[in-house]
């Protein structure tokens, strides 16, 4: 293919954009399957995927603990590492939102970095909304004979507007039935360090969530954020509720052969 000018480059990027995967620390540490599922989904959608080695975490734990200096240092490093790619995609609404919505705010008093963070943030997306909204994916090839229910993680829902995209793609999974979760838009009580700083309050919140999950009769609980998933799974297991918990990307990528989060009951 010969590239004749900017218009052609743009067209080529649209056809086959290079996506840098921001793995997120929890997926990296606890659930690599989600990372591989993300790569498969992105590649199936026609993206070239790269995984820059120089990544740890988005900085949210520091940011939400009031430690602005460490957050800024982490943000600078993430921006430097990822800003050269067409898109930056994270399999998490919460980390995606930190990169997309909060990085520019961090540099409100540093014009040069503010500019850079703003340009960077325009290219950042959460995985499922990227597939649906940017790549125009309307269906996936996966198959799963199960009734699943879906929890809307807070940052994805309220900061990034992710609601219909995962449901639409899930409905295209052969054999899958989607049972709506009552109060799906209510927080699961994770809240990052909140869940260990205020374990009793967090428990009350996730306890309600577990009850709601149980009422759906679903075999499987899905969401787009591993923090919420680990929290909900931990509570379901402790309450002996036999519901498998997985990241939505695992189901969309047809990668449900691995044991679920926290194993089986």
């Amino acid at each position, binding site marked *: 293919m010969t590239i004749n000018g900017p218009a052609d480059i743009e067209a080529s990027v649209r056809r086959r954009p*290079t996506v840098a995967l921001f*793995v997120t*620390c929890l997926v*990296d*540490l*606890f659930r690599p*399957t989600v990372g*591989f599922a993300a*790569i498969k989904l*992105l590649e199936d*959608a*026609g993206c*070239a*995927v*790269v*995984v*820059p*080695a120089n*990544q*740890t975490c988005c*900085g949210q*734990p*520091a940011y*939400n*603990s*009031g*430690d602005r200096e*460490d957050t800024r*240092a*982490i943000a600078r*490093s993430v921006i430097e590492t990822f800003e050269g790619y067409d898109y930056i995609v994270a399999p998490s609404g919460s980390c995606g939102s930190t990169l997309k919505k909060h990085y520019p*705010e961090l540099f409100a008093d540093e014009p040069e970095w503010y500019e850079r963070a703003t340009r960077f943030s325009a290219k950042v997306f959460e995985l499922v909304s990227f597939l649906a909204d940017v*790549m*125009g994916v309307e269906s996936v090839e996966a198959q799963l004979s199960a009734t699943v229910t879906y929890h809307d993680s*807070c*940052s994805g829902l*309220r900061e990034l507007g992710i609601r219909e995209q995962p449901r639409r793609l899930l409905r295209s999974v052969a054999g899958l039935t989607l049972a709506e979760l009552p109060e799906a838009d*209510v*927080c699961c009580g994770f*809240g990052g*360090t*909140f*869940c*260990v*700083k*205020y*374990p*009793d*309050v*967090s*428990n009350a*919140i*996730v*306890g309600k969530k577990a009850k709601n999950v149980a009422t759906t009769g679903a075999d499987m609980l899905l969401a787009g954020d591993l923090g919420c998933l680990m929290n909900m*799974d*931990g509570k379901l*297991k*402790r309450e002996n509720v036999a519901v498998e918990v997985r990241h939505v990307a695992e189901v969309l990528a047809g990668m449900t052969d691995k044991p679920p989060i*926290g*194993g089986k009951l």
Partner: protein
Amino acid sequence: MQITSQTFKANTVKALADVDLQRALKHVEKGFIGKRQKAADALPEFEALRDSAMAIKQHTLKHLDLYIEAYVAKVEASGGKVHFAEDADHARRIFLDIARRRKAKTVTKGKTMISEEIGLNAFLEENGITPVETDLGEYIIQLRGEHPSHIIAPAVHINRDQVEADFRRFHVDLDPKRDLLKPETLLSEARQILRQKYGEADIGVTGANFLIAETGTSVIVTNEGNGDLTQLLGKCHVVLASIEKIVPTLEDTAQILRVLARSATGQEMSVYTTLSTGPKRPDDQDGPEEYHVVLLDNGRSNMLGTEFEDMLRCIRCGACMNHCPVYHAVGGHSYGWVYPGPMGAVLTPSLIGVDKAGHLPNASTFCGRCEAVCPMRIPLPKMMRHWREKEFESHLQPATARAGLGLWAYFARRPKLYRAAVSFAMPALKLLAGPKRRFRKLPLAGGWTKWRDLPAPEGRTFMQAYAQSGHGHMRSGGRETAR
């Protein structure tokens, strides 16, 4: 009022174990949310009205000095008097001066959170003056010796059967065999008792939802009509209000009213919206002989021009707490001072100091539901984060949390070191968990495992697995697949 925000954690443990409270809190969750949503859905311009209401408040706060001056001039032109109160103590002294001059023995009160903020009831009792709360919820908690647990539904933490028991305990002159099963009978019993008080009162105290600069008018919004009787039948009307209640014009008031009740209770308008301008004029049929406004600052002017200025847009609708999962779990008293929920988590540190209220901005999951429903679009999570930053800067957080965070940040800022550490730790954790793939207990993870299991990692980290999977770190190609 004694501040117990420092013991927030202990307060929540008590609240979570309180069966009656937990029963009552279910109503908050079930009641308010659906009603607000219905009201918002029924009004196509609701979102635009939120923008407009927010703009009015933003404009007012930018020129607050100007509008306060204009307001004071109008109140005085209508024969009323405005008293500036720098803090709670100052406000109480102003009130006592008025009460002493009027030789007041009884004070009827409409619902006012500023009265709570300055601790008026206890102060009046110390000075031999009897305060009588006339809002049903306030009346109930006054009988019980409690404080409001919600800014618009002060007794929301109490169940009907508890109210019945209280009424039987305090209304001893009434027939003990009377039927009090229906909530309406409780209401009419309270009404019957309170009706006599209005006329006897020497002073009627109300709060204000708005103070209108254009006309010098104070506005109250109620559902019971008790506020109207309080301010009309008392011989002297004292309005307790804080400086951010000022709005420029009547038109602005009307605009904000359209989002207030909808956000609060899901009503289009509350049952009564009452405007008071000055004392009784010579030709008026009724009204108070004197009209005073105690305009309270109490730390608010220090918020102007700071990252907390947006908080002064708050119109006290309560939507943030009605939608807050933490409030739903632990109720308003856990927050330990006058203002609970997300708005309290931001306002309380501003008013009493972050050293006393440090837990409140931390006790949030940042789920963002409060900001999503706030009619004034106050970025509540963002401001809670600002408080956390202030705490971090002044080393107010617990040493262990700070040390843990410091250690984590040290690694997070050094990818190579981080990689080496986690590449060892994660496979080890997987082994430790064994075939169950989760932990019931794990050293240093007690906060997590107290109530829930901890899922074990899958084994190798993603970065390890990816490097070994043949994808290669900077591979730029992918499988050719049709879209």
